[in-house]
């Protein structure tokens, strides 16, 4: 395994981790807001 190959793996991991964390975190926050919003709509 060459150093270039290792660097490309690390870079791909870094980008992927950032994207995954942002998307999953945003989903969690949206669900939190949605749960309160839904309760506000109940009559």
């Amino acid at each position, binding site marked *: 395994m060459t150093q270039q190959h290792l660097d490309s793996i690390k870079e791909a991991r870094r980008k992927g981790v950032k994207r995954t964390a942002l998307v999953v975190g945003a989903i969690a926050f949206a*669900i939190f807001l949605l749960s309160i919003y839904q309760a506000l709509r109940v009559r």
Partner: protein
Amino acid sequence: MAHAATHDHHDDHHGAPKNFFVRWCMSTNHKDIGTLYLVFSLLMFFIGGSFAMVIRAELFKPGLQLVQPYFFNEMTTMHALVMIFGAVMPAFVGLGNWMIPLMIGAPDMALPRMNNLSFWILPFAFALLLSTLFLPGGGPAGGWTMYPPLSLQGDSVAYVVFAVHLMGISSIMGAINIIATILNMRAPGMDLLKMPVFVWSWLITAFLLIAVMPVLAGAVTMLLTDAYFGTSFFNAAGGGDPVLFQHIFWFFGHPEVYIMILPAFGLVSEIIPTFARKPIFGYKAMVYAIASIAFLSFIVWAHHMFAVGLPLGGEIFFMYATMLIAVPTGVKVFNWVSTMWGGSMTFETPMLFAVAFVILFTIGGFSGLMLALAPADFQYHDSYFVVAHFHYVLVTGAIFAIIGGTYYWLPKWTGHMYSEFWGKVHFWNSVIWVNVLFFPQHFLGLAGMPRRIPDYNVAFANFNMISSIGGFLFGAAQLIFLGVIVHAVWFSKKKAADRVWEGAKGLEWTVPSPAPYHTFELPPVIHDDELAHGHVED
């Protein structure tokens, strides 16, 4: 995969920090943080267990003996909160932290600093929660479900809500980390359908956490605003609806049950193939069954509320949807049995706990199926039958799997073998006394004894005394577990091999025992025939 071992002599050249504070408080190493989670979980297990001892001591015979009714209610509430959020969940996160990077060939978790924060929030959350026991007005006593208006009557609402928020934030950050690790940090060649079942179970559990922990946070936030800011989300006098809380709570609460059992399924799916010396039977079916159970967990929440007065159509829907869960769960049980069938089985302590899990969890599953029947549930609801059911699922299910997993990987963590003799003494004492503790509670419930009461009719005296004796001895048996761990960590002279168990397969067994501080800084080479579940057809 043999290549993995050759990398490890490079990995150990920068070891753990020497300074105690730096190593344990500022660690970003997945193994150290996993250890912290596991130690914290064990501490909480004994604190929650001591609350259970108070409950069983009070119920040893009819009449009020030891504690006042309010304190008894505090004990039932705190026992549940501490065991669920402090013992079982952190134990699985600890096992995941330790093992997921090792099992997928990753150098660490994807977000190591967030990993540290996820853990260090927990001691503060539980200090806050447990401190309420010393407040002038007492701690929470309305049950772990926190149903209003009962839960709003004490002075500890703000403490409990803030503690639950902290636990939720910790769990969500832990889940984000696990998802990011599994999706992005796998070694080249470790395709999703080549991952160990434990890793799969944690990936699905992490998505469950992301989906439901924010709902709990929303529910308790609304409790807080009802208590202190004059809103009426759950206050009927102000136009709100207390039953709305129950719907929101159980939309979180039922998947929460699966958050506590799916990683246990994963653990057992690692242990049984090792000691049966056969690949897991039906690997793909096991993965799809876990995913199916996770999906179904979102559409069954109202089976906790049959007695609240649901429309008939709702009761029928939630009854059948709940019964449907038996199908993928049955697939898993049959696959574990099929894995053992014809295998060259040996019964070391992890396998004993795994086999006990399969049998006793199935008993908990059957009583769950009884509770799923809406007409029958009207009799069982809020009785000791429910207490017996969920303790079979959570103690002989989740906790037996955690204990089995601990014995399974302890030699890999410490580099020393634990005492097999004392492990077996621990197992037999646990498995006998846990049944003496919980099995009579089925009869108590069917005879009409309600849960969460400090006193009861003399007609229930005998079974309660038997249950309490089982409880004291089961509690005492866990001290053996503590002794076995302490011995393995500090006193055992017997060195563990790299591949600790003869039938063990998977990347974690290719690194030395104890696992070096840094592993897989160079990605390992994956060979399909070395995978735990054998070759998977595409």
